[in-house]
């Protein structure tokens, strides 16, 4: 089974994800913010990172964290799944300009909108881990 790092400030979400994912044997570590991100990722050494986008400190914290992770040669190989309450259909929803196609809009392997059905989440996690 895999080591999964969940970064989300909403404790109900992290508790729920932990309940589901530990129930099927994954090892879960929870982090409530993106401070000292690289150090924590190196310490946990996860197989998958589940990341929220909007944190209290910054509405694009998840994107910034994903870019930071991508820049690190070793950590950049870890798949990242974004889980957000804001719909991903539009860049505008996240404060990007629609014409700004150069922006690395979604520098992650997958996106799921909250709330997520456990079955869909598990399928997505399995595909990312495989």
């Amino acid at each position, binding site marked *: 089974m895999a080591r999964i790092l969940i970064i989300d400030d909403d404790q109900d979400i992290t508790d729920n994800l932990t309940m589901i994912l530990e129930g099927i044997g994954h090892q879960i570590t929870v982090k409530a913010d993106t401070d000292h991100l690289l150090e924590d990722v190196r310490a946990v050494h996860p197989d998958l990172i589940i990341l929220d986008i909007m944190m209290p400190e910054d*509405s694009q914290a998840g994107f910034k964290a994903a870019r930071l992770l991508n820049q690190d040669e070793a950590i950049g190989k870890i798949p990242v799944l974004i889980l957000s*309450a804001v719909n991903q259909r539009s860049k505008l*929803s996240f404060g990007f300009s629609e014409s700004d196609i150069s922006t690395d809009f979604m520098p992650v392997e997958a996106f799921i909108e909250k709330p*997520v059905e*456990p079955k869909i989440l598990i399928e997505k996690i399995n595909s990312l881990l495989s």
Partner: protein
Amino acid sequence: MTRPAANSAPPFFEWDTSICEKGLRTTEMSERGWWFIRTRWNATALCFLGALWSVLPPLEATPRFVIDYRFFLVVGVLLAASNLLYANMAKYLIIGQPSKKRLCRFLSLQVLTDYFNLSILTYGLGGIETPIMILFLPHIILLTLFFSRSYSFVMTWVGIFFASLPILLEYMGWVPIVSIFDILHKTNGISSNLVITSSYILGITAAFLICWYLVGDITAILLTRERQLEEAFNRLQLLDHEKSQITLRATHELKAPFAAIKSYVYTLRDGYCGVLPDKAQQVIERIGDRCDLLMEKISDIIHLSNLRTATPANAGLTENDLAAVVLKEVEDARLIGKPRRVEVLLPADPLPCPIMASREHLSTMISNLLRNAVNYSNPDGVVEVTLEPLEQEVVLKIRDHGIGIPEEHLDKIFEEHFRSNNAVRFNPNSSGMGLALVQEIVRLHDGTIQVSSQLGAGSCFTVTLPRLPNPSKRGDEHGQNSDHR
């Protein structure tokens, strides 16, 4: 160097060491630089024509002017030579990213050259006898636009000097007197008369200074207004960005708790906390349904509020193919209609319909209309979608054969939260926001929406949006333009 306080009113005449701290922007100055050069070629041609006219025998009907062709010739050659030099200099100075200071110096040099040439021409055309020094005025107007107030003031005095020089030199007897009418009369009368000469010079001085003052004053007012507009525009952009951020935060704050509740509902429903009794399972399902409805309402209210403050300028409209969006949304609608066997028909692959639009808003508009059509169709019903690209516009029609809308409600269906009685009975789980959103999206895209309906027989929504020419057609036009060039 001391500077006035930022909030104190600027003095009328502020002597600054910079020649171009105020005035036009670099791009505008570059354009004027080229304009100067182009206009000087015309002036050069006129000088050569003047030289030619001076040597031709006069026509019977024209008065006999005595003009020495050499003045026109000298000025024409000087203008041509200096303009060749300036055209080459402009290639280095204006093309690329010139500094404003260098442009100012370059334009100053051109103005000085023109002053010198105009001075020779004034002398050659009899000085006081002709109004040729009027040609100094456009230069004074332009340099007042180009340069700072103090620098343009100095340059205006330089202009006065060059305009007065031929008259002054003639009066002093340092150069031979030139007349195009009557050399004897001028030698004995006008040019040797101190009152006439000094009045003339004073007249030039007053005219040039009044011109500098008026143009400078109007320019200063216009520049101040322009800067105020620019600041207001920047403030609006900032406010728009802040508004987006607040909306984003509000959306998140309102949706996040429901997302957490719904996640727990899923976890309970799917048995991750153990198997639930049937009744508990039903209750959980209903909690989930109400959560969905509430989340949808919140999203729609925020979406509608955003749309009402949106304009085509800030909505991020880009070129989109309406046909592609319709195809995708029809596929989604077919899935929604499947449980009740409602068929969604799109007769043939629609032709490309390029329009300026936000793809997100287009998707919302079409999906709302299709959802309504499917949801208010009877089981085994049919929804017909047609997309017709016309010359100037695109017409999208979505027709269902469902419950229809009572005639007295047709003018209210685009109001938010409004739902007709038969619609509430047929489909209780709807936010009543869908058509309000559709109408706002149509407005944002400068289109129109019409509805026709018959109770019990169905409804037809017709959306008309302005279209762009096809890419192939635009390519042809571009090619034709290129050929012309």
